[in-house]
């Protein structure tokens, strides 16, 4: 009984230490585990696989450093899949502080895949206006993005020659840690009929399942688990896939804490 009392009133710093060790040890030991692919991630992957060569995909960066461990692996895998399929990418976003962060990954993967700026991809940078920008692109992208992130006119780039609005884009992929994912669906997908799938943090994933159920989006890549599944599908397991053993062990530890904490609580209540 003393053990249960101790567990019910355990110092929270010991719990932090236990969680820290549960995460650190699998990373140091480089543990591996099998990853099962879920239907929503496979569907997102196949949406890109089924696009014809030369299709234009708009990637919206709506995350920053606070969610980079979850979304960076998704973004890298997305770029690799798109460049392998010879698709063209428009890079923009609605989080000013997030675009320069994701540009590290853009520069890394474009160099790795040999993608040419202005022909295979373009960086349009950030514009204020959020939903007004989303809707405005449906009329003419040049109304907001007459120049790229360095101030070069977009008409000087070959890939932008025939791109004017969502009618010229095959897909939108949103990388979001907030409500931007929902805004893209509500303001753009429903209004302009363009296809989309969402890459979101674990916190945001549950809010997007109703949209998937309703067929408004073609897939969801949610949290580190979704990122790991996507990495496996693209064939380039990296930080997400390697982080999953730590994630699973930490989850088991948290479940154990919840169970023991509740047992201790109920026993102490019965005593009173």
């Amino acid at each position, binding site marked *: 009984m003393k053990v249960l009392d101790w567990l019910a009133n355990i110092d929270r710093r010991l719990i932090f230490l236990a969680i820290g060790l549960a995460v650190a040890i699998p990373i140091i030991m480089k543990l591996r585990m099998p990853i099962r692919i879920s239907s929503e991630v496979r569907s997102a992957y196949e949406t890109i696989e089924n696009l014809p060569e030369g299709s234009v995909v708009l990637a919206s960066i709506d995350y920053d450093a606070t969610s980079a461990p979850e979304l960076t692996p998704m973004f890298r895998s997305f770029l690799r899949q798109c460049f392998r399929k010879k698709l063209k990418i428009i890079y923009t976003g609605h989080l000013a*502080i997030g675009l320069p962060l994701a540009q590290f990954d853009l520069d890394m993967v474009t160099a790795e895949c040999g993608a040419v700026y202005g022909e295979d991809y373009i960086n349009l940078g950030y514009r*204020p206006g959020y*939903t007004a920008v989303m809707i405005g692109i449906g009329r003419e992208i040049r109304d907001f993005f007459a120049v790229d992130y360095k101030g070069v006119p977009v008409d000087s780039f070959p890939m932008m020659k025939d791109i004017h609005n969502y009618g010229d884009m095959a897909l939108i992929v949103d990388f979001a840690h907030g409500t931007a994912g929902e805004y893209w669906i*509500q303001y753009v997908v429903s209004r302009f009929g363009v296809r989309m799938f969402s890459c979101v943090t674990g*916190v945001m994933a549950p809010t997007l399942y109703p949209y998937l159920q309703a067929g408004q989006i073609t897939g969801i890549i949610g*949290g580190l688990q979704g990122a790991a599944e996507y990495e496996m599908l693209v064939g380039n397991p990296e930080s997400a896939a390697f982080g999953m053993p730590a994630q699973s062990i930490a989850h088991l530890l948290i479940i154990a804490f919840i169970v023991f904490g509740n047992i201790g609580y109920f026993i102490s209540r019965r005593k009173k």
Partner: protein
Amino acid sequence: MNLLGTWIAAGLTIAILSFLYRDNPLYKFAEHLFVGVSAGYWVIYIWAFDVKPMLIDEFVRQAGFEKWLLIVPAVFGVMMLMRWIPRTAWISRWPISFTVGIAAGLALTAQVQGYIIPQIQATLLPLVSVGNTTAETIGRSFNNILIFVGVVCALLFFYFSREHKGALKVGSKIGVIFLMIGFGASFGYTVMARLSLLIGRLTFLLQVFGFR
């Protein structure tokens, strides 16, 4: 330079994590540094990507009516800054009401067209859905019934025009169960998200210190 940046990042990560033990000056320093750097970054970014290219450069580039039309947002921007002076703070209500009006107008159509109607459509499902096999028929029908019962009962829980007694009480109780399952799923995902951040930071630290 890159090495120095990595060590600064590692040091600041440890400083922030030190709060888990107790509040301390190292944590306070890292926190204030973050707030200051973020604010400075935003000021520069908004000047470089908003004000200069979209207002000043456009004013120089445009001609005729469109050039002079840019004075309207410029004046609205100045009016917004009036908030800093208590005596003139009321002036900022005009540009605020303008942006609120635009946001409300855009959101109204988006909510109806992009959320309410598609979600209602997705709920109007046949309770018996025939598949290629018996198992598929049972599976599909079970899912559709689950969605129907879940939506109706959750709505009953938020029906406050009558006292929850009899059938209404049973329905709302079932609704609570569905809501709790929804909250549980959200919480589970949140735990996963927070652990992912810890995994990201610890992976970085372990790489810096040569453990990986």
